[in-house]
């Protein structure tokens, strides 16, 4: 709620409202009429009480001016009509004179008292209004979550309270004052020297052309500057402005701290990811290299003394480890592309059968020894996808399933079509994933963070890549229970996209 500052000073004794004076005249007329009705029934001195009542009513309702007018009018009316000699302003009895003087005196005193009480009440109401406005302002300030909200609230409040254009300046990264919010930015003062305004503005606002500059200071640190388009601020306005500015400065300080904290959190998370990546690179790239270098140097040095089976065994190790290295590098490349957001989808109509066949073909050697059954429902339509990426996702899922499958564990790859989505399920008979970890396994480096798990090496990138690639297609991937509650089922859901046009 905006604060409205009443420009007419509250301790001015004479209100300028003509209605109040009309009311004063009216009440005297009413008192006179009543006195005419009653003057035969009571002594005329007591009739003065009637008029006094009228004056009291007026002074309670309005200010000193109307009550004085009422009392003078009452005195004259009483004197003219109800004191002998009647219908003159002469006074016959000295007692009547005394009555009249007392009467006038009391009218003046009570009028003054009532008027003062009235003004006190007005003041109270105004300051109550101000306090509640200030409270409302501070409530909005403390609930503001970002700098923009703080600035908007400040400008909004100021513009209403002072009824003049305001603008807020914050230092940019080089410390140059930059207008950030305001009612009238078009008329904002040019080139403000912030430091100077901060130093000089601590005691009195700095005048800059038609603008008054107020510093925003929190914790003895200047955080910004408020410019008010006003020739001069009165004491009360200045006081109000300062308290608004103080609150805004504290709120600004707070939102900046929050932003800094968020930034720090991001930096530390990036740091963590980077070190996880480094350890992944050094561990997962070096392990196969160690096997390769070990096997080949053995062959070079002692190959002559090895049996031919052993030689072939070592050479096979070299090939397998080199292929593993290639897969790791592919993963790192994919992750980089996903992470940089440079992954551009080249969608095309693709038969899911083809994707599955290619993925299975690429994993043919690792899959040896694990029975794989493929069951793709006949009604699965063509997919509008980037085939190579979906293939890579399936390869990674197969790789993951193999890593956790027991010897001879069955692997099922199924696909079905329902509700405009194709659901691809890959189930293994591995140990399964506890419900609490089913989301985390898609985080980057999750397995890497768990440390080595025997021979189940993994970069912790594979599943993160799966999710990245599927999500790029507007799909989803989740981990769930295996078919009989044993093992794991990975479930990819892909929207089918454009309807298949007729041939």
């Amino acid at each position, binding site marked *: 709620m905006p604060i409205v500052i009443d420009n007419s000073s509250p301790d001015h004794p004479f209100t300028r409202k003509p209605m109040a004076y009309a009311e004063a005249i009216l009440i005297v007329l009413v008192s006179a009429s009543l006195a005419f009705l009653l003057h035969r029934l009571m002594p005329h001195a007591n009739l003065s009480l009637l008029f006094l009542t009228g004056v009291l009513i007026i002074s309670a309702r309005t200010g000193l001016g109307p009550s004085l007018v009422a009392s003078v009018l009452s005195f004259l009316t009483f004197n003219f009509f109800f004191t002998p000699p009647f219908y003159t302003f002469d006074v016959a009895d000295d007692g009547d004179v005394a009555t009249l003087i007392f009467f006038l005196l009391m009218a003046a005193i009570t009028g003054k008292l009532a008027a003062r009480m009235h003004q006190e009440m007005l003041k109270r109401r105004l300051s109550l209004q101000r306090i509640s406005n200030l409270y409302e302002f501070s409530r909005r300030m403390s609930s503001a979550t970002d700098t923009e909200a703080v600035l908007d609230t400040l400008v909004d409040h100021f513009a209403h309270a002072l009824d003049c254009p305001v603008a807020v300046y914050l230092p940019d990264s080089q410390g140059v004052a930059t207008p950030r919010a305001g009612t009238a930015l078009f008329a904002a003062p040019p080139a403000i020297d912030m430091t100077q305004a901060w130093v000089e503005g601590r005691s009195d606002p700095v005048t800059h052309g038609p603008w008054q500059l107020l510093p925003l200071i929190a914790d003895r640190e200047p955080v910004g500057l408020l410019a008010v388009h006003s020739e001069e601020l009165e004491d009360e306005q200045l006081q109000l402005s300062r308290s608004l500015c103080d609150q805004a400065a504290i709120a600004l300080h707070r939102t900046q701290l929050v932003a800094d904290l968020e930034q720090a959190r991001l930096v530390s998370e990036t740091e963590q990811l980077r070190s996880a990546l480094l350890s992944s690179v050094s561990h997962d790239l070096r392990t196969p290299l160690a096997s390769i270098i070990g096997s080949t140097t053995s062959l070079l040095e002692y190959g002559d003394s090895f049996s031919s089976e052993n030689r072939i065994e070592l050479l096979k190790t070299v090939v397998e480890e080199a292929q593993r290295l290639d897969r790791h590098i592919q993963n790192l490349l994919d992750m980089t592309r996903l992470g940089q957001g440079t992954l551009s989808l080249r969608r095309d109509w693709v*038969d899911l*059968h*083809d994707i599955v*066949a290619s993925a*299975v073909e690429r994993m043919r050697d690792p899959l040896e020894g694990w029975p794989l059954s*493929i069951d793709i429902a006949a009604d699965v339509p*063509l997919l509008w996808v980037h*085939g*190579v990426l979906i293939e890579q996702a399936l390869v990674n899922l197969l790789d993951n399933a193999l890593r956790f499958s027991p010897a001879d564990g069955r692997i099922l790859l199924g696909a079905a079509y329902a509700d405009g989505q194709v659901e691809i399920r890959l189930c293994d008979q591995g140990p399964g994933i506890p419900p609490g970890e089913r989301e985390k396994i898609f985080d980057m480096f999750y397995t890497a963070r768990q440390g080595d798990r025997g021979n189940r090496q993994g970069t912790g990138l594979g599943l993160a890549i799966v999710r990245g690639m599927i999500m790029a297609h507007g799909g989803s991937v989740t981990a769930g229970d295996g078919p009989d509650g044993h093992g794991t089922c990975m479930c990819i859901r892909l929207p089918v996209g454009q309807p*298949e046009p007729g041939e």
Partner: protein
Amino acid sequence: MPQETILIVEDEAQIRKFLRISLEAHHYAVCEARLGEEGLALCAARPPDLIILDLGLPDLDGQQFIARLREWSPVPIIVLSVRADETDKVAALDAGANDYVTKPFGISELMARIRVVLRDARQPSASQRLFESQGLRVDLSQREVTIDDRPIHLTKKEYELLRLLIAAPGQVLTHQQILRTVWGPAQQEETHYLRVLVGQLRNKLGDDPAHPRFIITVQGVGYRLALPIALDDNVQGSDAN
């Protein structure tokens, strides 16, 4: 049979070395070029029977090499490329390369490609009247197709597609190449026509799409007809697996 010459255009000395050793063990004559310009000059001086071309040369872009060579020579080209992007492979194939192998590759894979391409260059399949492989028999003069002596009926487009794949058995054909030939140049972006047609043809040939016997998908690139077993006759011990 006279010794066939293979030109290797590749800037990596290590790769040239193992290619030379393996190819010479298979009784091919080998010449090497480190740069694209060098390779083109060698081609002009002593035309090889086949070129193995690395797409990432220091001086010439692989596509440029193919385009310049194709201006005057039909000598078959097998492209070596890293996996990063399938569009490079498609571009190379569309520019006139006959097949590709992705780095890193096993030598047996490369040898199989070389044999397919050289055999086709020696006696073009397109000029043959009869094609037979794994129970599939296509009589091109009579337009008759049988599987295990059981005649099957193909639509005009299905037959066209099969004929196209048979014309270069074992070699990859890009989506665009097939679409251009079967549907015409106006339809060469309509890949879903092709997907549907391949599905129908596989169905009629009794091909399991998840383990195809005849039509193999090359993801993101195109299709190839499965290598007929008869081609492996001159495989020698070292690359049997």
